């Protein structure tokens, strides 16, 4: 290829790259501001932020206007002599006092908004959100729907995360069980955690509240429009911190009542008869789903774990040793490690099922089983 031809083809290539990038830029979602507010408080925060942007913008342009004027006009040039002034009390007092006044002007509306943001009194519905490594648990503890409880786990398939399947629209922002609340009602969220600190973060409501193990904190919101809202855990909580989203459905009062009724029937249906004696196959089937929801993030679907932080279950001493030790570990966890005490999270039947499953899955062929009644007896 001649040099000219090379140059032309290079130019074409460069042009092609630029065009592709431009096309991408046009299609891309370059969101530069908050998500659309869905509560009055979130709207107030949005407006305050805009106000700050304007004030800071004006100051910025002012200060750097002066500096760039100096950069252009006060350059070193033949015959130029620098001035020698190096203080001016009046100016120095002015530029201390004026910023102070600007700050006071800014802080006043923020103070008012903060006080209403933190006012969680008079809630219609109170929901406790418990952070677990790595999912959320919800208990409706007061108001319509009292008694409803469920866990909410990431529902994005593993294949999408590993790039083996195309990613869906709500990639990493979808869960199996949504939190459902009625529109226009004041919802109080109590946060706590079972293991490490998490944070319940819902951008459209301007709610972010750390969930601290052993303590209860609160936050509140009153959504003013219906819709599905998505947020994430906002405090580093270990390996799968990026994989425990929060989804809230805001629905009309009628739909909410219908949802409550549906949940109540569902809960009654799945409640396990404590006296029932399970067969090995029943326990294994149930245990497989419990394992997938609670264990496989660390110990992996293959049971091989991610040693040394997350040991294997397949072939492990515990899962192929005395079943009492195995049950005890699952019930009470292991201090100083990420192994949680699942006794607090799971029912007798679920614990019995998952222990039985682990003892009889993969290369583990213990052939024994744990009945819910044994779990009940082992609880301290």
């Amino acid at each position, binding site marked *: 290829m001649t040099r000219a031809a090379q140059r032309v083809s290079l130019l074409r290539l460069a042009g092609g790259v630029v065009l592709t990038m431009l096309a991408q830029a046009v299609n891309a979602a370059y969101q530069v501001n908050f998500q659309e507010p869905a509560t009055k408080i979130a709207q107030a925060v949005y407006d305050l932020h805009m106000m700050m942007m304007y004030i800071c913008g004006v100051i910025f342009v002012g200060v750097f206007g002066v500096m760039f004027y100096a950069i252009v006009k006060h350059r070193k040039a033949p015959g130029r002599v620098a001035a020698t002034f190096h203080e001016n009390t009046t100016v120095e007092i002015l530029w201390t006092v004026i910023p102070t006044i600007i700050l006071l002007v800014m802080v006043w509306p923020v103070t008012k908004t903060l006080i209403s943001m933190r006012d969680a009194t008079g809630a219609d519905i109170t929901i406790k959100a418990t952070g677990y490594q790595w999912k959320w648990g919800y208990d409706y503890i007061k108001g319509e729907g009292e008694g409803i409880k469920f866990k909410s786990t990431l529902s994005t398939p593993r294949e999408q*995360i590993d790039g083996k399947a195309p990613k869906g629209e709500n990639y990493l922002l979808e869960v199996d069980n949504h939190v459902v609340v009625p529109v226009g009602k004041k919802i109080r969220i109590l946060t706590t955690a079972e293991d490490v600190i998490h944070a319940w973060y819902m951008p459209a409501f301007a709610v972010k509240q750390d969930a601290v*193990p052993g303590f209860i904190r609160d936050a509140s919101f009153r959504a003013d429009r219906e819709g599905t809202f998505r947020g994430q855990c906002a405090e580093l909580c270990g390996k799968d911190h990026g994989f425990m989203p929060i989804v809230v459905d805001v629905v009309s009062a009628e739909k909410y009542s219908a949802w409550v009724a549906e949940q109540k029937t569902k809960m009654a249906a799945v409640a396990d008869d404590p006296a029932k004696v399970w067969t090995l196959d029943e326990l294994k089937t149930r245990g497989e789903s419990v394992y997938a929801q609670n264990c496989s993030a660390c110990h992996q679907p293959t049971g091989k774990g991610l040693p040394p932080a997350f040991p294997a279950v397949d072939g492990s001493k515990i899962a192929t040793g005395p079943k009492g030790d195995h049950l005890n570990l699952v019930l009470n966890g292991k201090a100083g490690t990420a192994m949680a005490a699942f006794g607090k999270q799971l029912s007798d039947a679920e614990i019995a099922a998952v222990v039985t499953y682990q003892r009889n899955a993969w290369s583990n062929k213990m052939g024994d089983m744990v009945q819910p009644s044994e779990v009940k007896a082992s609880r301290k």
Partner: protein
Amino acid sequence: MNTATTTVNGHSAGHEGHGHHPAGLMRWITTTNHKDIGSMYLWFSFAMFLVGGCMALTIRSELFQPGLQLVRPEFFNQLTTLHGLIMVFGAIMPAFVGFANWMLPLQIGASDMAFGRMNNLSFWLLPPAALLLVTSMFVPGGAAAAGWTLYPPLTIQQGMGMDMAIFALHILGFSSIMGSINIITTIFNLRAPGMTLMKMPLFCWTWLVTAFLVIAVMPVLAGAVTMTLTDRHFGTSFFSAAGGGDPVLFQHIFWFFGHPEVYIVIIPGFGVVSQVISTFSRKPLFGYASMVYAVAAIGILSFTVWAHHMYTVGMPVTAQLYFMYATMFIAVPTGVKIFNWTATMWRGSLSFETPMLFAIGFIFLFTVGGFSGLVLAMVVVDVQMQDTYYVVAHFHYTMVAGALFSAFAGAYYWLPKWTGHMYNEKLGQVHFWLSFIFFNMTFFVQHFLGIAGMPRRIPDYALQFTDFNQISTIGAFGFGLSQLLFLYNIITCIKGGPKAPAKPWEGAEGLEWDVPSPAPYHTWEVQPVVK
């Protein structure tokens, strides 16, 4: 401002000096010379800067697109943790201690630092600490993965990498406390006759304030991580509610250290920038006294605002209000500094050599970081921003465009004094412009990511965050590669280049320019008299 009236005795001192120290490796292991130790600090910090930078590039590569491609989440968390610890304690802090070692004695007319042997020890504690941090990646369970803030109870769950990080922090704390004792003692006792405190170059003043901050807060950090250690191994429950403790207690202790720490990182940079701006404006610093008061005010106020890092942890609304007001007050002295620098440039005779470019870049971008800090100070807005990429963008504007850019300004400013050669000016300016452009490409877009709700410290993200993350990753690689120009420029400057005069910058003031370039091994053995 300062004029040395005695004759310069650098030459003869340099000549005498050569016979007294071992050559080769033993010279560096046994040296008590402030210039040797300063150089070792600077090289060490640059090496750590590259190590921490490679970690950052791995992080950014993983975040180039959604999904998990390069690293697993648990390793990703180790990278973010080590990147933070290494950059703060291994790169930025030692860099400025290196500047202090080199320049403080020269600037105040002292023959060396006050405690030579302690100075040697405070440097040689750094390599074992760095080794602990870096090798912790290869022990069972990997390195600490709880973020550089090391919040329990997550830290209680980790493997022995966490213990190695704790011991590394202990060692680094010892090192910086000893360095600070040395700096304070040197400034208070070894100033040349006539060099009153209010005549000291601003770099000395900023380090004096910084050194007090270090001595005040490093023991607090040591206490916090020691409590973590005993919680991990000896059955205490400082941070566990089950035993009557409180995980949030750690956060209060950590940030009581952590907020002064961010000023420890930035305040010496204020000093460098003040001197550079004045030199290249060929005009005395505007408001010297108010600069000193502003730095001291920032130092003192920094102890009163720690909980603005933890607005969402759940504290009484009155506490939130107090911390918000106190934080906003820091904006006042910080603003004063920006105004003073602008006024220094006003009606000067400005030239734009590399140090000046980095200093102006510093002011420009540090102000952006200051404004985002003001936004974050507003509790209700912070509730949206806390633990998102907005915070990441904010502190990189203060720590990279702030502390790092001021370190670059200082390095180019004093390189002729250190090496006796001029660096390649054109290459220096290219380094500045590439750093400036790629820095903004990397971090400006992260504001948008944070506002839109992308949490920090996540290895994978929802699809709407893809485009800005890609821009940020490309910028990060550009920024990282640009730093190789800096390394190349330094090496060629050490090896050769145009001979530098004693005072290579027309507008420079201060005693350091009265000794020849390169500064002889021993300087100011007879103290100058400052009028």
